[in-house]
């Protein structure tokens, strides 16, 4: 049985209070150092972007092309992860700067601020790992839980996952459209889809025009070099960010929940669900920054609106709380978590349903490991 069922209501309350205390302390401590951190990071990102785009103009020289791609990739990753993702979570709204604010910030990505805040901040962070509520479980493309009904298309799970990662920014941009509702389940009409796609297309168009036409055209005869450089930088960002995000919620031991947990869910229950539904990975300071501190996915899900550079400092306390209440604190190397994610992607491509329906998903989570053995046998 999952720990979720063995904790007493008093323990849930106590966990809630302990985590609230950390939250309140961090919020009271917000100040100049947070401002300095985010401004410095933004400055570095802008410098990397200008350097990258500049170097690519001389992209006919291989070293310049490589350096340009490296700078632009780093710029896009910083812009999306440690800056955009965190700013749009409202982590810096308290600063009162209209340019570093969840309402106004826009990122170097085809997804709009509004769509992102809906699917990510609202759906994913509120209903984390709740099946049918958290669209991030598979993005409507993949099968990531054995309680997700198997469909023939999921045979292609691994291939679909590669496609999802390769074009990650575009899939994220259209995530709010719930394309599967139109293409597969036929619950959405073409007209509805068209209307919803309009603001997204406006942003996509501008991003595509900038990266694949305007900047290459500025290089004149060297158009192909800039074009290829921009494609590569976008690809690098897509592959990296999708893997970081997969590692946060798809390693095998991470739990998923049925919709019933949401009924009268207390603050303590919500916190525990966030901890059971997320996984960290380890690394140095640079790894943490480049992953937008989503290497501290557990801390991020507990405190999504606290500046992410604080997670590293909070994490020992969160870990101690987990130990105290017998909760798992899922972490490991980037490689270990990635392998675990891809194992799940492969396993879920095959039909296989374990446990009776209606018992709730968590009941099966702990045995998942031993059951996974049978799945792989089946696969073999």
């Amino acid at each position: 049985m999952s720990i979720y069922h063995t904790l007493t209501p008093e323990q849930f309350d106590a966990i809630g209070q302990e985590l609230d205390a950390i939250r309140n302390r961090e919020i009271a401590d917000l100040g100049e150092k947070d401002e300095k951190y985010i401004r410095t990071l933004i400055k570095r990102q802008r410098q990397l972007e200008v350097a990258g785009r500049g170097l690519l103009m001389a992209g006919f020289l291989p070293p310049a092309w490589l350096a340009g791609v490296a700078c632009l990739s780093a710029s896009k990753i910083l812009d999306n992860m440690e800056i955009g993702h965190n700013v749009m979570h409202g982590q810096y709204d308290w600063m009162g700067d209209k340019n570093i604010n969840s309402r106004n910030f826009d990122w170097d990505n085809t997804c709009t601020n509004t769509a992102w805040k809906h699917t990510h901040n609202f759906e994913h962070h509120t209903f984390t790992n709740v099946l049918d509520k958290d669209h991030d479980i598979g993005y409507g493309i993949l099968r990531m839980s054995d309680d997700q009904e198997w469909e023939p298309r999921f045979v292609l799970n691994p291939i679909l996952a590669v496609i999802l990662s390769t074009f990650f920014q575009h899939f994220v941009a259209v995530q709010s459209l719930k394309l599967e509702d139109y293409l597969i389940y036929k619950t959405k009409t073409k007209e509805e889809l068209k209307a919803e796609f309009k603001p997204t297309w406006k942003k996509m168009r501008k991003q595509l025009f900038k990266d694949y036409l305007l900047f290459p055209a500025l290089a004149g005869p060297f158009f192909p070099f800039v074009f290829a450089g921009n494609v590569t930088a976008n690809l690098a960002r897509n592959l990296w960010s999708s893997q970081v995000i997969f590692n946060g919620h798809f390693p095998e031991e991470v739990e998923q929940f049925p919709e019933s947990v949401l009924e009268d869910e207390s603050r303590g229950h919500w916190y525990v669900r966030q901890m059971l539904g997320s996984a960290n990975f380890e690394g140095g300071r640079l790894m943490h920054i480049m992953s937008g501190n989503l290497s501290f996915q557990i801390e991020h899900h507990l405190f999504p609106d606290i500046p992410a550079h604080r997670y590293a400092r909070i994490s020992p306390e969160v870990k101690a709380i987990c130990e105290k209440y017998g909760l798992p604190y899922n972490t490991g190397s980037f490689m270990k978590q990635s392998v675990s994610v891809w194992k799940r992607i492969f396993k879920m491509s095959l039909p296989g349903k374990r446990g009776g329906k209606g018992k709730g998903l968590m009941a099966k989570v702990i045995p998942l490991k031993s059951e996974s053995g049978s799945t792989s046998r089946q696969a073999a």
Partner: protein
Amino acid sequence: MNATTQTPRRFQQGLQRLLQSRVAGVLSYPHGVDRYLEVLNPLWSTTEVRARVEKIEHLTADSVTVTLQPNTNWQGFIPGQFVQLTVSIDGKRHTRCYSPANSLHRTDGRIELTAKAHANGFVSRYLREQLQEGEVVTLSPAGGEFALPEQRPERVLLISGGSGITPVMSMLRTLCDEGYDGEITFLHYANRAEDMIYADELADIATRHNNVTLLRAFGEGESGGELSGLFCSEHLCSSVPDFAQATTFLCGPPPMMAAVEKVWEEEGLSDRLHKEQFTLATPQLDTSDEAGGEVRFARSETLVANNGSNLLEQAEAAGLTPESGCRMGICYSCTCKKTAGKVRDLRTGEISSGDEEDIQLCVSVPVGTVTLDI
């Protein structure tokens, strides 16, 4: 203007046009050109007025006078008008209104702001104690109806109290620089002689300009002033007998403003009195029936019991971070949609309708239950 100043100017205008062009916008999408310019130099912007702190002086024990060098986006001001100054204090931006005190004809293009650091004046205390020369601050364009008319009046009476001296100081300095030859009376109220900002300069102006009469009124028992005590009609009758003929500009603390306004009203001269309130009259905390009900922040799904203070403070106390600025109903940063309920305007006492409408949070107190779209 000669050729040497023309060329950089034309270059600058060309550069500005280029940076504001559509191509520049697309290339810098989605962040915008300014976000890249400010990385190179915090003063650079295609739209925002930013200014470097050039000099910090303390003319009196509790005041600070800041000289600012604005960037080229600064469009100037009319003496009497105010600007909104935004500074970052411990990571958080704060905006307050200040009236430039300098002459319109100052040749170096700099702006002079003077603030008095009150015990609970968060920003003024920061300006006095922590602001450093070389820092960059943000300014709004100048605004406000309180302004010296382009057609200079024939007779001018300037009345100020405390740090309300700044807009009328700008008027006086401007008129003197222009060689204005009408009569000017400068009537200023301060608690003590040593608290009077610009005391030396005013004395100097009065001796150099025959048309300027300086009247200083300090608190009871204080020496050094031509008058003493708070404003009263006797001060006017004895020292400015022709006040009815003057165009009067008034800026000071609310009780003093009220006393002056009353005299002008009684004389039927209200249209000759121009006034600027530099602090919001302290709102009475509402303890009557009005303070009942609750404040519902619909979008944040937050609900608090109405405690009678203004909606901005109530929102912040509830943990929300609505945009805000001057906190006195001037800058409209905190404007938001009220979807239901009535509010009272702190400045006028007027109670709104219960309809959906835009309100300024900082000057609105709820009358019963109010629902806001934040």
